């Protein structure tokens, strides 16, 4: 009797389990686990920190996108027309696009978002586009016109940024219409929706089933909060994190270790931005062109890239990577040649009389080299530079400070050499050049001793408002050649992103900008 009861129960259990097994198997969603140093924030598309750009790009989309070759490609706008005077942009919107809450994406939604951004224009002054927009006009349901106060060629690049020109569902805007007040929920048109946020623990994204484009193959992206590099590396090794992707996720020696591990796939992205130092043409010995040129020839960049960056970055000869728009100029590099460097200094009257360092008119050849104190990479590079410069008779004082003090030093021009990288795609070169005209930037301070500084600024202004592409090419050539010949930048390397993942993840590629991770095209087994 007892046996019969047991066998009946066992049979029932088996049937139940076998009935539900397919359901259970199906129900386990495909989840990719990524990690980030903090939570992604409330995901307001029109605001900055604590909103994280990579997450804003997952949920919100722009009218146009920055393509991998530096060209602007249609996205939420299928096409656009620019008026002859360069002041009117007519965008034809993609039809059949819905926000993840079902609200249709149309011209009115675009206008409401633009108006919300402009209502908070003060916060966006850094972006050239903002003070050029006169108004946004709704022409019909799927046509919208952007009217500018003056022509501005990088408009489409600025429109492609991760923020603020992205589109929130009008239903999520607050009553005031001003998204700076708050948003009701993070609802966009992008391939992902933010499903859950647990402070200090994780953020969970789910696939947006209303997405207009190719739907992601992965169901969910779980972004764990891991502030420490080593913890992230450990979590990856134990399988608690599936993907390492980005600029500053793990240390370079850890990357090197993963690279040699057959269980993992690793990759290094094409150049993103430039790691460079600005050389001050208005202060101390670096006022002399000869000293600036001698510094260029004295630095062994190849050794830095190999020894410090473990070949994850690429040696840089010019301020911008030649593949950036307008930057393929064939400028002659300052090759590593300490002999030539010494020769230039000798000719300029800097003599080695006693000791390892040079003097002229009883003044020592001493420069202040400033870096972020707690940035281990910058510190190491600074130390190598110090040794390279000593080699040719230049004494470099290393000044390591915290980020805020360094910003103040940049603003005040209180440096000879200072770390000052470019911003990367899609800001290079137009937005970066535009900022060279602003006194609070190290670039402005570094260039301010040049006799042709006014001319450079004028040409940058002309470039940005020019509607003729040929003319822009010409102007960029003049600006960038001048800066190169005047040696006010010491480019070290082109920075890259790295990625590491296990064999179960496929189709991982790099996004065209620093601020987007192409989760939507990835797949998982």
């Amino acid at each position, binding site marked *: 009797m007892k046996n019969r009861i047991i066998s009946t129960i066992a049979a029932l259990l088996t049937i139940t389990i076998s009935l539900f097994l397919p359901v259970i198997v199906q129900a386990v969603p495909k989840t990719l686990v990524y990690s980030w140093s*903090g939570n992604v*924030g*409330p995901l307001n598309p029109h605001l*900055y*920190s*604590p909103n994280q*750009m990579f997450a804003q790009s997952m949920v919100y989309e722009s009218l146009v996108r920055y393509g991998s070759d530096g060209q602007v490609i249609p996205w939420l706008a299928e096409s656009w027309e620019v008026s002859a005077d360069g002041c009117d942009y007519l965008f034809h919107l993609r039809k059949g696009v819905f926000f993840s809450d079902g609200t249709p994406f149309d011209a009115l939604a675009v206008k409401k978002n633009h108006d919300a951004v402009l209502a908070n224009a*003060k*916060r966006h*002054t*850094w972006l050239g586009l903002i003070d050029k927009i006169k108004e946004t006009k709704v022409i019909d349901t799927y046509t919208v016109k952007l009217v500018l106060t003056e022509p501005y060629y990088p408009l489409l690049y600025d429109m492609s940024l991760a923020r603020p020109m992205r589109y929130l569902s009008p239903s999520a805007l607050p009553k005031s219409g001003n998204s700076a007040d708050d948003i009701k929920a993070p609802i966009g048109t992008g391939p992902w929706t933010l499903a859950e946020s*647990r*402070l*200090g*623990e994780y953020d969970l994204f789910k696939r947006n089933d209303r997405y207009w484009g190719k739907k992601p193959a992965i169901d969910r992206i779980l972004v*764990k*909060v*891991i*502030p*420490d590099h*080593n*913890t992230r590396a*450990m*979590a990856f*090794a*134990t399988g*608690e994190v599936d993907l390492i992707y980005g600029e500053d996720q793990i240390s370079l020696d850890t990357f090197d270790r993963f690279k040699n591990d057959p269980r993992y796939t690793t990759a290094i992205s094409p150049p993103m931005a430039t790691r460079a130092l600005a050389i001050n043409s208005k202060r101390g010995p670096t006022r002399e062109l000869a000293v600036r040129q001698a510094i260029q020839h004295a630095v062994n960049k190849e050794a830095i890239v190999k020894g410090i960056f473990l070949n994850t970055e690429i040696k840089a000869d010019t301020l911008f990577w030649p593949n950036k728009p307008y930057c393929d100029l064939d400028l002659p590099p300052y090759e590593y040649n300490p002999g030539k460097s010494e020769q230039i200094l000798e000719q300029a009257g800097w003599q080695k009389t006693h000791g390892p360092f040079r003097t002229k008119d009883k003044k020592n050849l001493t420069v202040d080299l400033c870096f972020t104190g707690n940035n281990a990479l910058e510190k190491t590079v600074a130390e190598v530079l110090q040794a390279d410069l000593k080699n040719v008779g230049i004494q470099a004082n290393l000044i390591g400070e*915290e*980020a*805020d*003090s360094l*910003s*103040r030093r940049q*603003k005040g021009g209180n440096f000879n050499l200072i770390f000052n990288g470019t*911003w990367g795609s899609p800001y290079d070169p137009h937005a970066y050049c535009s*900022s060279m005209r*602003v*006194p*609070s*930037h190290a670039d402005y301070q570094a260039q301010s001793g040049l006799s042709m500084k006014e001319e450079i600024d004028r040409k940058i202004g002309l470039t940005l408002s020019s509607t003729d592409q040929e003319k822009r090419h010409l102007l960029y050539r003049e600006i960038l050649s001048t800066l190169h010949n005047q040696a006010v930048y010491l480019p070290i390397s082109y920075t890259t992103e790295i990625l590491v993942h296990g064999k179960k993840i496929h189709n991982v590629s790099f996004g065209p900008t620093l601020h987007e991770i192409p989760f939507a095209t990835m797949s998982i087994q």
Partner: protein
Amino acid sequence: MLLFILKRLLALIPLLLAISVLVFLILHFGNNDPAMAYLRLSHIPPTDLALEAARESLGLNRPLSVQYLDWLGKAVRLDFGMSYVTGKPVLERLLYYLPNTLYLAGFSLMITIFLSLPLGIISALRKDRWPDHLTRAMAFVGVSTPSFWLGFLLVFFFSVKLGWLPALGKGGITHVLMPAFTLSLMSMCINTRLIRASMLEQMNSRSVLYARVRGIHEKRIVGSHILKNAMIPVVTAIGMHIGEMLGGAVVVEIIFAWPGVGRYAVSAIYNRDFPVMQCFILMMTLIFVFCNLGVDILYAWLDPRIRYREGGKA
């Protein structure tokens, strides 16, 4: 006793006030600029215009005294302001993270007490024999091991190599084991040695000698004569260990990605999030003072001499 507690609580008010002024002054006269930090975090170039806009939106363009009084006025009503970074109420966030830290510190304290007590007693009773040598060596290594290194070592061994324990995050009991052990090792080793020393001292005291003479059973001598008296300095030390654990939790929380208040405070320091830092320091002051008060009360309970003195004065 009640009067004693009341007096201590009243003394808390000027203490907190003094600390709040001090913290406010240190933060605002230091080389820190929250507006600059905000722009850096937002990837916005720090133009003068952008800085001005950031200062205005953070309320930093007002005179310092106005800022302090405004803050104080709200703080007495338990409104510690909005975080510069998240724009959300500070106290709410800190209270959200605090239980996780208390859980971790509490668990560590349990480990400390439950391991150091038997180890300390055994090494005292078996003085200069192998159990004593073993705990001595353990204490030596334990005190010298930095927690960030120990943490990674544990993760490497138990998570990466053996796969027994999760490497990070908060979850079930398995998640708290490694962080709590990392956090408690140093206190545990100090405590073991302290219990041993304190017990040896009591063992040589006259009361113990007379107890032996009275023919009291050795077990009772150890239990109620030696151990109870030996506990008095240990209780003081444990009071300090709680503080040590709440402070040490910062490092452990970062290594194990534990969503605690220490980690939140560190990110606030990095982000120059003044309201969070102010509230955090006051909160920690309060916890420390209460821990010490608790220790004092326990002390009085353990040592009748203190009780009688207090009673005599009153």
